């Protein structure tokens, strides 16, 4: 009897068997295929209730009772498999043809629990670099992932980072666990960098700062906090936004919806659409904003537009949630790039802010960033910090130390800090100059009269070219220019030497492919 109850409660806790949402968010699927996937998910739910009624027989059954071929599930549910098109989308491998006759328990090799698992789709962004590496064409250009390259298209380790690492080596510091919230020296400087050391929020300790695994990890902690303390609250994200934002909120089980952002007609900001959608959202929603250098479009609101955005957010009692991945990288100035966040903070608003040092300090692989929660009192900030720690502990216990030490050393040493500011101006400067060169090439080569000035107006590492899916594919297939299918190019991967070639590719794709 006891066995039966346990089994039932396990089923009661069960969630959807197939990770449909995250798969869907990555694939550009036609609506018929979307329907098909939902039917598939439903069929699997039916399967679980069948299992529930079969409980008495389970105790004598052999192992792997939860595994059944998906085809069987669909047949049970009397669902048509759909057109050949749709099953091709699933892929032949998705449905295992092999039958599930269990091997005897005494055989040497077991049957795997995970035998039904299919290949995950390649990550749309990180997958681009993998494809680029495999290409042997001499003119190939990697404008995929947003990692800075020098004019010679080499990765760049900042001088200040090398110096900081040498200092650290000399000191011979130990490698003990950091506290769950990370390196204290890092947390202090990162908050100050964001808001300014003299800012009231910092002076009055109204900010909870926890070191996170770069931008992604910091966003994930914030998402987990939202899920736990604002169950049911939505996050509004820009359309488009960085691909991984949706994955993060999906996996954290936080519902999200989009607000208009990109206007393809102007290749600029759909400001009125943005304001309307933020206004229309349920009160108390979280609004995800890119602090500067919007990814993937490169389109930022003007200071006046930021004021209006703040107005409507306050009107609707929404919570601003900034993703700041490019502070210093956009304009070349750390303070200028933080002005949107500071504008909101100056109004006394409570904020969430995720930071990353991947780009501006070139510390990509060290995974160093922070989640900040600006609260209305220091007492609340302390409590929030304690709960962020409680979320981090079962994720990774405590964050990696190396990147944190580098940041603390660079920002905490005035010579290194000044040197960093200079290096950042150089990096941002190079990007601005290739934008100019690309714009000049496009204007010179294109006789159609199309206005390419958006290349100059956009800011930061990325540009939304306005090319569609097919056109972006043409860029890759014909011109060996690697970029993401949404039309995003990373200027950081462009050298001035290749600007003309790129201009040719863009013009060809834009005019000759639909």
């Amino acid at each position, binding site marked *: 009897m006891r066995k039966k109850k346990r089994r039932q409660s396990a089923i009661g806790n069960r*969630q959807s068997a197939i990770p449909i949402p995250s798969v869907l968010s990555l694939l550009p699927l036609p609506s018929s295929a979307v329907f098909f996937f939902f039917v598939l998910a439903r069929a699997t739910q039916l399967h679980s209730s069948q299992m529930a009624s079969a409980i008495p027989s389970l105790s004598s059954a052999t192992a792997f009772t939860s595994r059944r071929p998906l085809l069987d599930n669909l047949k049970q549910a009397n669902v048509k498999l759909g057109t050949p098109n749709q099953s091709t989308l699933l892929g032949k491998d998705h449905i295992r043809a092999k039958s599930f006759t269990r091997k005897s328990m005494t055989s040497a090799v077991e049957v795997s629990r995970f035998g039904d698992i299919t290949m995950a789709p390649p990550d749309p962004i*990180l997958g681009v670099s993998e494809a680029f590496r495999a290409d042997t064409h001499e003119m190939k250009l990697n404008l995929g992932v947003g990692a800075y390259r020098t004019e010679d298209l080499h990765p760049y380790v900042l001088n200040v980072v090398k110096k900081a690492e040498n200092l650290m080596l000399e000191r011979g510091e130990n490698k003990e666990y950091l506290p769950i919230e990370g390196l204290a020296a890092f947390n202090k400087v990162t908050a100050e960098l964001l808001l300014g050391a003299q800012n009231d929020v910092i002076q009055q300790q109204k900010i909870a700062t926890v070191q996170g695994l770069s931008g992604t990890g910091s966003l994930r902690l914030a998402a987990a906090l939202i899920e736990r303390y604002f169950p049911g609250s939505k996050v509004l994200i820009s359309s488009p936004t960085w691909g991984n934002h949706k994955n993060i909120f999906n996996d954290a089980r936080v519902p999200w919806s989009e607000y208009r952002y990109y206007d393809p007609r102007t290749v600029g900001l759909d400001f009125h659409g943005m304001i309307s959608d933020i206004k229309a959202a349920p009160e108390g929603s979280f609004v995800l904003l890119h602090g500067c250098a919007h990814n993937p479009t490169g389109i930022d609101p003007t200071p006046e537009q930021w004021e209006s955005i703040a107005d409507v957010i306050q009107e609707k009692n929404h919570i601003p949630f900034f993703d700041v991945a490019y502070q210093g990288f956009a304009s070349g100035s750390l303070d200028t790039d933080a002005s949107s966040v500071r504008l909101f903070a100056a109004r006394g608003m409570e904020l969430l802010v995720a930071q990353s040092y991947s780009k501006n300090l070139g510390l990509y692989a060290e995974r160093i960033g922070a989640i900040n929660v600006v609260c209305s009192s220091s007492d609340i900030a302390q409590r929030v910090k*304690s709960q962020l720690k409680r979320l981090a502990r079962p994720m990774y*216990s405590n964050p990696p130390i190396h990147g944190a030490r580098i940041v603390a050393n660079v920002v905490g040493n005035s010579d290194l800090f000044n040197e960093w500011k200079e290096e950042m101006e150089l990096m941002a400067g190079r990007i601005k100059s290739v934008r100019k060169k690309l714009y000049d090439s496009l204007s010179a080569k294109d006789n159609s009269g199309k206005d390419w000035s958006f290349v100059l107006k956009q800011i930061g590492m990325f540009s939304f070219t306005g090319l569609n899916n097919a056109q972006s594919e043409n860029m890759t297939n014909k011109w060996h220019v690697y970029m993401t299918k949404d039309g995003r190019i990373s200027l950081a991967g462009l050298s001035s030497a290749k600007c003309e070639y790129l201009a040719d590719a863009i013009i060809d794709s834009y005019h000759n492919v639909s």
Partner: protein
Amino acid sequence: MFGRILASGAVGAARSMSTAWWRHVEPAPKDPILGVTEAFLADPSPNKVNVGVGAYRDDNGKPVVLECVREAERRIAGNLNMEYLPMGGSVNMVEETLKLAYGENSDLLKDKRVAAVQALSGTGACRLFADFQKRFSPDSQIYIPVPTWANHHNIWRDAHVPQRTFHYYHPQSRGLDFASMMDDIKNAPNGSFFLLHACAHNPTGVDPSEEQWREISHQFKVKGHFAFFDMAYQGFASGDPERDAKSIRIFLEDGHLIGCAQSYAKNMGLYGQRVGCLSVVCEDEKQAVAVKSQLQQLARPMYSNPPVHGALIVSTILGDPDLKKLWLKEVKGMADRIIGMRTALRENLEKLGSPLSWEHVTKQIGMFCYSGMTPEQVDRLTQEYHIYMTRNGRISMAGVTTGNVGYLANAIHEVTKSG
């Protein structure tokens, strides 16, 4: 949701006032393990002893950075770019790490049947597996030994995998409750998922013998259970990494398709670097490729890709025969010092004339000793003697030195002699 915000006193939309969104957030309870160190650091007493968190200390009570690690760092400093690792982490590091767990000449590795990704130390590896288990075996539960490292419960809970427990520690003998453990294994529904500590069980230090492991493996076969090994102390338990992986090797010989979390926090002293590995044994290479892709899919929205520095240290050391030899020597040195301290603590207690048996101090293995002390006795140790440990009576032997073992034995004797 709105009610909660309104109830907490949120103000209307006046521009100059802020609404306190987080007022309803309670302070989290202190982490039982990491909180101990915080308290220790705050204590001004010159006699204070930290036998709380499981981080190795030398005989002077100082943290240790291994020589092989220092050398590796010198070699990698400043000359490598910091580009993102692939989502699965450092390929080199993972390959070397799998050899440690599965054996240098493992057929599984030759046949590429092991899906593996770099993970954020042991915690990250366990969490990734828990999320993977939730997504691909959504009806399953996890059986966790009693007791276990406290964070195991947090990990599977936050991954939304229901938990059950199985008997493990036998308080009366301070050893393994093998009979009850086997009963629980037999009574669990077929095909259950079990969390096993590969060696140097945390917090008890009580490991099954080789014969017992064979029996456990056999029973797992009969029941079709899934074995997930958390191996955080390979090399640290006996001093010999091959010997410490014996439990895993037994299961592999028996044909189990296991999962395994590995960590370099202790055995390479890379605590703060967060380097580890999660592996899942599959039926064939194709399945391993698919499983690996799904593990990466889970990692991407958590941290995108893992940190490089610690991984570089590991692959530099394990990829160089001389450095690897040095590492093996240093690991043995750490394990030997701990074994020596176990002997010293037991002898001291016996010399003091303790009425209790302290045999378990030397029978148990690895970093921890489950002393059998009650929470009240532990509180007395802290309040009266400034000795810091977790309230379950777990002593981190790594924090015991020739300098403090006498003081420690005396204090333990004082609080236990009447009970």
